[in-house]
């Protein structure tokens, strides 16, 4: 059995057969996971300095030299690295007096922080499968981003107290601006809101839960929200799965969600699991929190400092060397910011060629975790999943690459 690192569900039931050192058959992968497995043979990165192929050792020395000589290095990525690599990465940042940030900085960070600090109640996906009866997919679309979420855990499976599965035992609600593939599954439970309409929807729901008329113009919607209020009150075990739709709508006003979580837990019992994308974002956030008291956006230049100025979108303005690991930062950021990134001397560590590696001065190829390298990671609900390599390759793990850079600095 293998573990897929295609998303933060870290599916650990992947069956595979190998023939002559190559994977010849897989079972249980979703389309996205299948893509990750197929990528073993596509666009693999080579060690290079300034576009010229070099040995692995030369690439490591050049990377160490660039980072070691920098006044303000920035180390970014981390959510596609194992816990072991993340720990070494944090030590490297300390040694270099660097700024360190991860993809949660412009993704699930605000919400993940609430969960990790215990401010929002949470649970495991196994508890969801066994007990959850009301599921709220809010600005999230697991059918596209965590494709086996609904079949392994949240909606379709039978569980200890949910023997009749989705047909009778579970109610699914989707709050979204578009008819996503998840919305299609939840059918009647769909609430269409305008872009940025999440705060208003929270207000309307609070009113409905308090037995008041929600302040919504559309009469049909008003009725529907009132009915939703009574459905939510009846939940035995409700779970909210917030996605980027909700986060990007509220951003640093995420506290607007707090009164709703509180109210829901006065009338029933509700948990929240952020719908993380990358396979080990939560691992990085938790590890950095334990080390520094902050989940991301940290500088080690002068002890431990934290703040918005250390968010990757800001820190790129005055860093003089950048290391990106397991992330295609140039693709992920607005072009207006990517242009700045393109000018920074960069070390890129990745299994594959991408826009960021193409613009980097130094590239270091790495193994694909779960396939070519072992380690451990935290699933989106915090459960630790360990994995072994399933095929042999000459690629080094992130942890090994970072240890080598650390030694060479």
């Amino acid at each position: 059995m293998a573990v897929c690192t295609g998303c933060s569900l870290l599916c650990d039931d992947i069956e595979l057969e190998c023939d002559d050192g190559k994977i010849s058959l897989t079972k249980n992968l979703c389309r996205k996971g299948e893509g990750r497995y197929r990528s073993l043979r596509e666009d693999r990165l080579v060690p290079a300095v300034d576009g010229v192929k070099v040995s692995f050792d030369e690439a490591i020395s050049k990377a160490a030299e660039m980072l070691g000589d920098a006044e303000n290095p920035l180390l970014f990525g981390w959510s596609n690295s194992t816990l072991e690599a993340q720990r070494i990465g944090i030590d490297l940042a300390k040694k270099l007096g660097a700024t360190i940030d991860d993809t949660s900085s412009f993704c699930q960070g605000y919400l993940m922080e609430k969960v990790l600090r215990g401010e929002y109640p949470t649970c495991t996906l196994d508890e969801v499968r066994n007990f959850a009866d009301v599921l709220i997919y809010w600005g999230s679309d697991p059918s596209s981003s965590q494709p086996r979420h609904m079949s392994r855990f949240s909606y379709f499976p039978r569980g200890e107290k949910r023997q009749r599965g989705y047909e009778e035992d579970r109610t699914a609600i989707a709050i979204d601006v578009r008819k996503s593939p998840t919305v299609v599954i939840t059918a009647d439970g769909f609430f269409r809101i305008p872009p940025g309409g999440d705060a208003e929807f929270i207000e309307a729901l609070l009113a409905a839960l308090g037995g008041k008329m929600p302040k919504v113009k559309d009469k049909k919607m008003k009725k529907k929200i009132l009915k939703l209020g009574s459905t939510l009150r009846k939940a035995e075990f409700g779970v909210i799965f917030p996605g980027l739709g909700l986060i990007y709508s509220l951003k640093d006003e995420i506290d607007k969600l707090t009164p709703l979580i509180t109210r829901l837990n006065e009338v029933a019992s509700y948990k929240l699991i952020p719908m993380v994308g990358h396979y080990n974002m939560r691992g990085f956030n938790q590890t950095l929190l334990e080390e520094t008291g902050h989940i991301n956006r940290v500088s080690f230049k002068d002890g431990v400092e934290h703040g918005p100025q250390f968010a990757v979108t800001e820190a790129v303005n005055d860093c003089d060397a950048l290391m990106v690991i397991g992330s295609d930062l140039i693709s992920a950021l607005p072009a207006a910011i990517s242009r700045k990134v393109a000018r920074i001397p960069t070390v890129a560590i990745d299994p594959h060629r991408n826009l960021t590696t193409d613009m980097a001065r130094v590239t270091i190829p790495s193994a694909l975790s779960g396939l070519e390298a072992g380690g451990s990671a935290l699933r989106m609900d915090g459960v630790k999943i360990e994995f072994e390599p399933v095929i042999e390759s000459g690629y080094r793990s992130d942890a090994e690459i970072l240890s080598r850079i650390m030694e060479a600095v």
Partner: protein
Amino acid sequence: MAKVEVTIVTYRDIFQEEAKEIGRYSDEYRDLSALILLDRGDMKLIETEDGQTVQVDTDWGTVVVTAKLSEEDEEHPGLAFMPNSPWSNQLVSGDTGTSKIPEFKRIRAKVSATDKEVDTISDLVERIRAD
């Protein structure tokens, strides 16, 4: 040339996610990324049809992508959808406000019909490198 003002919301699509895993440089990834889903009425306004190319402009950038007719049940004039990708990211503001999170899901843009070809990933890379 007629233009229509829209708010673009980006989203993720499983077919595109799969193509991304395999490689950013594949034609498949471009075909599944360089898209804008428009309301039927908005398409009419700019005299374009499903499968034709359109130019999308914001204060921050321009891209040429393929227009597709949105499959939403309800009409949604002024609202358009794009898969999250380097194409949509050409259009996103560089201002990140106090949250330091870019406005990926509420992009104010103007869309117009064009004879130009869909931008390739290399076109985008050149533009990022040029400045």
